[in-house]
């Protein structure tokens, strides 16, 4: 049964991977904008970023998924009187991306803040603008420090996409459940699902470790 389940689980795992990849990419785009907003001199941007992070980090992803997939269409129905269902992939990826953005924002913020003040002072005292300092001095150093926590975020999100099974999106967990419904063999199938997740997360941590090594140009001191 375990081996018969594998091809099904495999197609689910493929879905899980690309959904996670798109969600985290979305999260990185949102997170970079929000993380930098958090450090900007503009009070509105700072507050907006803070509210965003607090809301999406402080509420369960499962509820966020349900709100977007079920809540929003029902709201639209109440307003317009028309049925406007959201595509399950769009809803799922949006929810995960928004959620991930909040975590990435914090990663980006702390990565930038971890760079020594002296770096900014040196750059500014040479006449470089704030933007030039950010681009040539702070970000290149911050990126190296941000890679490991971003890897963690990718792994966390990969596991969290299993929540998308509740809205029927056929990622790994859902694929497994459908297979169980036909075969009535929960133990080997759930075990197979777990092993699939484990294989994926272990591969990612290897990739991250590799990226870390490659980016580790001599900058231990100073």
């Amino acid at each position, binding site marked *: 049964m375990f081996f018969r389940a594998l091809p099904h689980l495999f197609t689910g795992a493929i879905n899980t991977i690309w959904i996670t990849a798109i969600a985290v990419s979305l999260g990185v785009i949102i997170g970079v904008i929000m993380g930098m907003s958090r450090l900007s001199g503009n009070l509105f941007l700072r507050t907006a970023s803070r509210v965003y992070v607090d809301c999406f980090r402080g509420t369960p992803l499962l509820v966020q998924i349900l709100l977007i997939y079920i809540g929003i269409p029902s709201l639209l129905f109440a307003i317009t009187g028309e049925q406007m269902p959201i595509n399950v992939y769009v809803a799922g990826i949006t929810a995960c991306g928004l959620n991930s953005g909040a975590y990435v924002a914090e990663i980006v913020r702390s990565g930038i803040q971890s760079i020594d003040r002296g770096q900014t002072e040196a750059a500014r005292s040479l*006449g470089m603008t704030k933007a030039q300092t950010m681009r040539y001095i702070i970000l290149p150093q911050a990126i190296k420090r941000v890679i490991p926590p971003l890897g963690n975020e990718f792994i966390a999100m990969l596991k969290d996409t299993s929540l998308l099974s509740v809205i029927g999106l056929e990622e790994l967990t859902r694929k497994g459940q459908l297979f169980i419904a036909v075969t009535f063999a929960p133990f080997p199938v759930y075990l197979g699902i777990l092993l699939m997740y484990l294989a994926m997360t272990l591969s990612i941590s290897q990739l991250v470790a590799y990226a870390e090594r490659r980016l580790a140009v001599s900058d231990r001191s100073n």
Partner: protein
Amino acid sequence: MIEVTNLFKSFGKLEVLRGITTTIAEKEVVVVIGPSGSGKSTFLRCLNLLETPTSGEIVIDHVSVTDPKTDINKVRAEVGMVFQHFNLFPHKTALENIILAPMKVRGLSRQEAEERASDLLRKIGLEEKAHVYPDSLSGGQKQRVAITRALAMQPRVMLFDEPTSALDPEMVGEVLTVMKNLAQEGMTMVVVTHEMGFAREVGDRVLFMDEGQIVEEGSPERIFTQAEQERTKSFLGKIL
């Protein structure tokens, strides 16, 4: 060249500078000494607005630095700064550290900037370290590269904030030599330091600061041998 009028700076309730007034002439080497916490570093950092003064005016080369309408980046390009902890960019080689600002701020081509940097590196005897990352340089070498980085902007003034305080004793000399040569070439310099030998030998004027004020100033000769103020005497008595 630099005119400072009635400069005050507070951090919250703490008054660090309490009415500094002084003038620094072109080609003058002014050495600022004083006990820690006397405000000498803050004074230096106010000159290029790394700290924003609470009140008072600073004019460099007829440009009011403290005027909010002044483009501070333009002023900073003319004012080189050397830090206690070097603050080299660790992700860039020595050469890249030096050419970055001339290219991005002065608009030099890479080739022009590299020629300028190579000349300067040769002068301080570090040309073979051009393509080395700061991590593999000694403290003295780092500081010499940091000085070169500031000089590559061809500034009108150089500020030194305790440039040798973080160095191992055997490396202090090489940095002071670079600074001495710079002074001999006629660079206008303001140096915060504990190196009294340097103050004596290279300084045109010594400012003794304590509790946010200039207590006494004069030629090194006079300050070190015939200080008038009690506080100056007691400070010098402790360190000489």
